[in-house]
């Protein structure tokens, strides 16, 4: 693992669903086609695109939930096979469906403990301290540790799955749509948390979302996908101010012109007047 290696590098990654040989013969449809990009250490990235553009699959491939059909993914210059612990510890995924991703039979404390038990040699007291810290980080009361997932609300469950991703101090957080479904205050909180993690601990994030305002605020790089192909990849601000591809333009148009046009004249005064908030 050299320090010069990019955090993550995909070269020529293709993916299609595993299917029986006859359908592979007659209907060879790739969900992702020839994806190549690399992300430097400390950079965070957002993936945008339409439905069924393969965003979720891309995240799942990076997290190791799916195997690429062709191509390879290098984590800090190594393949997952060469150093499986690296991927498991440093590339933590937040799942979209928090109800099915949390084990109903375990208390929150145990759900959060499992990654620590597998990946670290902490004793019980250290583990509990780490759990309390992480729960504080995601704005949850510590009393929640003794409860079961079914006793929590949706938002709390989402935060628990966020805490599970953060508990190992990973280098990258992979979030598939999970951030945009929070309520606004919590989303702002998570957004601030991601920014703080980025600035202080250099934890980057790879997220998929449809919220371009959020993307502009938290990500350095933007990847625009269209039906499994990269149409644009580069600096977020550059793409959002001057998109080159029709897909990116359409996404932007949809988001800003139609989705937000009406309220703008109502809120114009507000936009100008809101002061900058320091924390």
């Amino acid at each position, binding site marked *: 693992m050299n320090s010069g290696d990019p955090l993550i590098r995909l070269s020529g990654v293709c993916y299609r669903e595993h299917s029986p040989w006859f359908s592979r013969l007659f209907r060879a449809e790739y969900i992702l086609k020839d994806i190549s990009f690399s992300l430097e250490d400390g950079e965070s990235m957002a993936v945008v695109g339409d439905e069924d553009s393969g965003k979720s699959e891309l995240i799942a491939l990076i997290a190791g939930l799916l195997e690429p059909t062709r191509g390879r993914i290098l984590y800090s210059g190594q393949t997952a096979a060469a150093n499986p612990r690296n991927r498991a510890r440093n590339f933590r995924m937040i799942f979209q469906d928090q109800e099915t991703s949390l084990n109903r039979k375990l208390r929150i404390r145990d759900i959060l403990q499992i990654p620590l038990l597998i990946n670290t040699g902490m004793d019980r007291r250290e583990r509990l301290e780490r759990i309390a810290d992480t729960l504080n980080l995601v704005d949850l009361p510590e009393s929640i540790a003794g409860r079961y997932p079914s006793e929590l*609300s949706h938002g709390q469950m*989402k935060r628990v799955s966020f805490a599970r991703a953060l508990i190992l101090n990973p280098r990258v957080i992979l979030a598939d749509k999970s951030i945009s479904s929070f309520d606004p*205050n919590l989303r702002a909180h998570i957004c*601030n948390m991601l920014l703080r993690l980025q600035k202080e601990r250099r934890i980057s994030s790879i997220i998929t979302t449809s919220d371009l*305002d959020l993307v502009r605020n938290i990500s350095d790089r933007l990847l625009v996908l269209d039906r499994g192909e990269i149409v644009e990849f580069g600096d977020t601000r550059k793409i959002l101010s001057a998109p080159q591809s029709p897909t990116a333009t359409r996404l932007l148009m949809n988001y800003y012109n139609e989705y937000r046009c009406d*309220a703008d004249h109502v809120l114009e005064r*507000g936009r100008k007047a809101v002061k900058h*908030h320091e924390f």
Partner: protein
Amino acid sequence: MALLDIRNLSVRVGPGRDALTVVDRISLTVNEGRILALVGASGSGKSLLMQAVMMLRRDNISYSADRFKLDGEDLLKIPSRKRRRIIGQNISFIMQDPRQSLDPTMKIRDQIYEVMPRIPWYHVLSRLKNFFRRTRSKTAAALLHRSGIRDHERILGSYPAQLSDVECQKIMLAIALASKPRILLLDEPVVNLETASRLQVLKLLDRCAKNDRTAVVVICNDLASVYNFADEFAFMYAGQIVERGSRDRILNNPRHPYTASLIRTMLELGRNGRLKRYLPVLSGKHPDYRSMPVGCRFGARCRRARRECNREPEMIISKNEQYRCHFPLEDGALYEDE
């Protein structure tokens, strides 16, 4: 007159004496042809309120209300069987998870037919049967088309497990509209959708409200996704409605500090400017229902809280605004405070 008029609806969760009052004495009126957006933090009791409006029976959950009138008819005074029929005919409800609400063992076609008005028996017996069958499938296709699905044939013939989340959501919308409801309740209908489909769904709701005079209640935890479409907003916090009013009034002059904080966050996120800036957030946590604070429930997180806030604020109702706060924000204070 309001289509749905509810006074002091409470929902208690839990067995017997340990029950927690999650939704606390909420009064709600829903008008024909209007879109009401119910906005609030997760865990503020929005979904429970909707389930209570549908009077869904669930274990460990009990409802009580002083008044529950649907189109002038008091539903609390009639037998439950009749009540359920009236609610079923007039109100459609789309739950949060579309995949769980669809029957996994039935084709989409049959699930849509199930809610459509029955074919009378004499038509079934006669030769007209085939004719009605055809119109039925046409209606089903039209419903799907209306909710933004283009390839009807494939969708109608498939099972829920073969479809994506987005398609399931649109199908649920088609099913909800099939019975021609007068009130449509939606629990976070757009949260999992991409921007283009969001627009489709919201425009469909808009058409329902404007053309068919349906009353639409949308639960949404994100203000930004509905604020172009809703006529009215109601903000919920810790089981109470803290503010309600028309869209322009709320967006320009919110009264309750919680409302103001949500709007401020939305504006700050949408502002063009420096990248990577921190957003304003409310400090503190949403109160736990097991240990609800005395007095104003927002008090612990409110910067304007004073000693008077230990007394629970009443809902102040004037001509075009309703709020629950001792020290409401003045006009234009949204951009000066904090």
